[in-house]
């Protein structure tokens, strides 16, 4: 999943990075095909080159040796709202049929079953990044037909990268469709992980498996303590 996400990135792009798998994917891309990727964190670190895997998006390692550090008003106004971010990565507790994301509540807003952290910068990343990529593990609970709360609208989502395959909207703001499978995964495995009748593109791509060097970088260099890589 991380490797597929890394491959989403083109060299030289300006990427708004969240913590966890997106961060790992960006740092993998920087060490492989996209050395000039500019990583921007909502904390204000621009062009970070962290010496260790940052544990939070405000990690001091993102500051030391970065190209620029600015206040958060600049991050949101001059970078995001200005349209200077080419790719934004998002995750979420729920992703629905139209790629809307929920990171706010499970259940009703007033009396939630589970109170999640909320938007953070996710609402504005979804609205302002030129291209939004979602990373999320498939399960019927995580992919309901309709999210309980729209934290980030799906309009700019270009791709949803899951642990078994890739979904893409059927045109901007359209319904998510299965477009690519990971090696060894059946179409039915993916349909079972989604809470609605998932449609597929007529011809499905097959994603290349991670190369040995991609795996080695991830496991031995970028996340040796397995902070984010699990299983």
């Amino acid at each position, binding site marked *: 999943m991380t490797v597929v996400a890394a491959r989403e990135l083109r060299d030289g792009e300006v990427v708004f990075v969240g*913590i*966890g798998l997106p961060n790992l994917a960006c740092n993998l891309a920087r060490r492989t095909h996209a050395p000039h990727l500019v990583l921007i964190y*909502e*904390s*204000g*670190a621009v062009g970070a080159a962290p010496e260790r895997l940052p*544990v*939070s*998006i*405000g*990690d*001091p390692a993102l*500051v*030391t040796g970065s190209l620029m*550090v*600015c*206040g*958060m*008003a600049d991050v*949101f*106004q001059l970078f*995001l*709202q200005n349209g200077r971010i080419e790719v934004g990565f998002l995750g979420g507790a729920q992703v629905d049929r139209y790629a*809307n994301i929920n990171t*706010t509540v499970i259940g009703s*807003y*007033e*009396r*939630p*079953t*589970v*109170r*999640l*952290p*909320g*938007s*953070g*910068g*996710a*609402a*504005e990343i*979804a*609205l*302002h990044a030129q291209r939004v990529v979602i990373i999320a593990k498939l399960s019927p609970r995580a992919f309901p037909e309709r999210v309980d*709360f*729209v*934290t*980030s*609208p799906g*309009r700019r989502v270009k791709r949803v990268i899951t642990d078994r395959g890739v979904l893409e909207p059927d045109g901007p703001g359209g319904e998510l469709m299965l477009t690519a499978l990971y090696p060894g995964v059946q179409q039915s495995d993916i349909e079972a992980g989604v809470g609605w009748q998932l449609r597929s593109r007529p011809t499905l791509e097959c994603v290349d498996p991670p190369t040995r060097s991609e795996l080695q970088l991830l496991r031995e260099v970028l996340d040796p303590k397995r*902070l984010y890589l699990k299983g």
Partner: protein
Amino acid sequence: MSLRDAVARHVHDGDVVVIEGFTHLISFAAGHEIIRQRRRDLTLCRLTPDLIYDQMIAAGCAKKLVFSWAGNPGVGSLHAFRRAAEGGTLELEEYSHFGMVARFSAGAARLPFWSLRDYAGTDIPQANPRIKSVTCPYTGEALATVPALNPDVTIVHAQRADPQGNTQIWGLLGVQKEAAFASRRVIVVVEELVDETVIRSDPNRTLIPASIVDAVVIEPWGAHPSYAQGYYDRDNDFYVAWDGISRDGQSLDRFLDEFVYGVRDRAEYMQKQPDLADRLKARARFCAGVNYGF
């Protein structure tokens, strides 16, 4: 001034209180002092409530939380917050980060509102009727608005200040400047008090001028388990440990008894944990100075 005196004088029951700092420079020392002085009915505002507001919520200081992301960064949930939010015992007013930044920006500029292109297609305004809109007088476009946030008191942790309160910060800047300018009263807590000549030698680093500062407090390690760039690292182990500590109210109470109520001040807090300084002290990575001559 001691932090005890600064909190006694400037933080009152019922106040709108801001302890800002995005991951960096969060004044845990001030939060703990507010808990020790048993302030009540506070409206706590912060983009990321973080562990410090989780502790203040658990200690019963908070009536209301104004925020944009309430999690344990890099770890998971804030359990005291979740118990209060899911139990309905804490009033919530919720924005996105940009919305909170805009509220502080408006407050700092003493404008009643701030315009932003945001919230179209999200359910956030339905959950928060204070998010409204305005029509651009040039293009006719509808833009979202948020109301100004003007706290009663803002507490800023910083690397250094002079005795008058001219305050310098480097590394992540968060919304510290906006929060301070938006606030009626400002307490600055610093790692180091420096001579005015140090401030004057590099004026571009000054984020907060003395003219808006009401109290200057020296409190080394006052941000732990948050961090101060160039002074000490973030204590990630503690952030991870908090998940376990805070999962039930009793172990959380034991933590407060031992590390907050059980110590008089930050110096005693540090004495209880003699390994901290060694484990987290920053290595030297000085930049070169620049020429201010003419």
